[in-house]
């Protein structure tokens, strides 16, 4: 599942094994395996999306969102 499949506010964790396809800037912001991630807001058609990853709020486009693999955090 990718970040696009999350519901707004659902707490999840980034599980990407490889970061090769992600923009370097996103990695700098802390979008790494094990980082907490959640969706703050979707624009219509989920593009762009507004996420909170590693305590940083960023907007990304759908094509980047598709590459962020996540798993929902179990409480």
């Amino acid at each position, binding site marked *: 599942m990718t970040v696009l499949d999350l519901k707004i506010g659902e707490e999840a964790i980034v599980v990407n094994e490889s970061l090769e396809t992600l*923009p370097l800037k996103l990695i*700098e*912001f802390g979008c790494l395996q094990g980082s907490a991630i959640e969706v703050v807001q979707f*624009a219509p058609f989920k593009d*762009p999306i507004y996420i909170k990853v*590693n305590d940083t709020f960023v907007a*990304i486009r759908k094509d980047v969102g598709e590459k962020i693999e996540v798993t929902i955090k179990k409480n």
Partner: protein
Amino acid sequence: MSDRKNINAILIGNPNTGKSSVFNKLTGLKQSVGNYPGVTVDKKVGSFKLDKDTKVTLTDLPGTYSLNPNSIDENVVQDFVMDQKNVNNTDVVLFISDIENIKRTLLLFTQLKDLKLPMVLVINMADRMKKEGVSLDLEVMKQLVEAEVVLISAKTGEGFKDLKNIIRNYSRIGKEKLLELTEINPLLFGKFNSDVPYLEWLKLTKANHDGNLEYLKKYDLDAVEVRHYQQKEIILRHKLINEIVTKAITRGEGVNQLREKLDKIFLHRVFGLAIFFGLLLLIFQAIYTWSAAPMEWIESGFASLSEWTKGTMSPGILNELISEGIIPGLEGVIIFIPQIAFLFMFIAVLEESGYMSRVVFITDKIMRKFGLSGKSIVPMISGTACAIPAVMATRNIENWKERLITILVTPFITCAARLPVYLIIIALVIPSASFMGVSYQAITLLLLYLLGFVVAIVAAFILNKTLKTKVKSDFVVEMPNYKLPLGRNVLMTVFEKTKSFVWDAGKIIVAISIVLWFLASHGYSDNFNNAESIIAEAHIEENLTPKELDKLVSSYKIENSYIGTFSKNLEPAITPLGYDWKIGIALISSFAAREVFVGTLATIYSVGEDEQATIRSRMAKETKANGEPLYNFATGISLLLFYAFALQCMSTIAVVKKETASWKWPLIQLFGMTGFAYLTALIAYQILK
């Protein structure tokens, strides 16, 4: 003898951390703006005194997220810290972080630390800690980051005393590295035989970014491997940062309710865009209402200044040059200081408050349909002030195609330089009556603004279809916290931008006014040199007063001056557009800068004129050969359209050349836009006349 001392400090930090607030707070008005060699990124240098004998020179580097170059602004910072000369000159580095984003900002901090720079971690917005339930153990933090740490608030001023003390004792600041680079790859990083191995690694990543693969071969590396190690470096840094943050900072369960509440409104699927357009309308409305009065003062002030000069100075060439060349020319630029300043103010408020990033978010999808990006919004709004800062503001658009299209279409947006032209033509040819309480003149102006936007968007759409490059988007935009803009910051930005705009435009305008005045009052032909006798002979039977005769002589002189002769030769090309040779002069000189138009006409009409009047009334008096007013509806509309579309701005051409690193794009822009302007003006005049 007292030993005077100068401490060189540099200011580095992420965007949106209040870096400029700290800079303004420390230096006050003692600052100046320059450029980094080769790039048009602003370089701000300021100074302040620690005590009578100790001065601190503070250089503000552009905001950046890391030393991995992604954009031009980041290149500047990377180049600066990689230059050994700069490093040796730097006594202390003030790294501005803020308490809410400390995790993200520490990435750049650890990178700089590994360059063995004398780092001070300055944590801003300390006034918000209590409210948000955050606490920080200063001593633990100091140990973990192996640097000086200080909590400040640029808003309340707390902590600045401590900060200054640290600067005073800069020699005590440690320069130890934080990350064990060999953890990334023992073999590769073991090869770096240098005091600062991280510098060697940065040289490699830079070479990779610049496509200099030869340099990579030195270490048997290829591009993929470099990127892989870069990622590994970032991962290790985040691991280190997480340890630091866990040990030194405790965070309560505070949610930023302001962000949540405002995002719900500003990012609403329907209302979000409505609010944005409503805001834009309000801003433009305010700009016009507020600047109407100051503009009138400037206008009447200049009219009396010119008259006073003419009467007070002894008659002669210098008198003429000043009262007929320089003063009217200056008026052309000073008249729109109010509007420019208000516009810059609103843009600064939108940026500082964090709202601009929300606009990027809600407009991105729509803008992409036209080959633009949500990030094109900021340049396009700035374009309503001036295309030059607007073109520079495209730098943070990562996608080259989107950036190029934004650069190419931004000059269509109605900039402040077009305003004086629009205002004066509208006043001449559009009736001052109103329809349901809205004046026709205001509607015309609004339509011209809309026209600029629509043509920009259509041009973008066409360019998007024609330019066949496929680039990865990598669109990543930080969504900063909302905050109330600091009045001091906004005012500093307004002051700085208005000053440099007026200064740059003013230089061109004064120079052109002088040249024009010279060309209009000198000539080479016999007709010019014998103007007095020719006119006297022609009107010998009419019994004219000497004054009337003088008037005829001077207008005959202009007609036969250098510029008159030149423009008359141009008439066949501009007559179909409804212009005479005098407008031709203004048109030609406006290719340096549009705002020259009004000043030029003022210069031309006032050469030899006795009584001083406003430029507008002089223009209204102009007639065609058949006695009809020259500035009629058809000519007016034709002029408005020409000025709406033609690229008449040397500075824009220069900045586009710089930003696209080629002459190709500015030339395409120049000929494309001006050709389009000529055609639309021609069609409009031929239909309306």
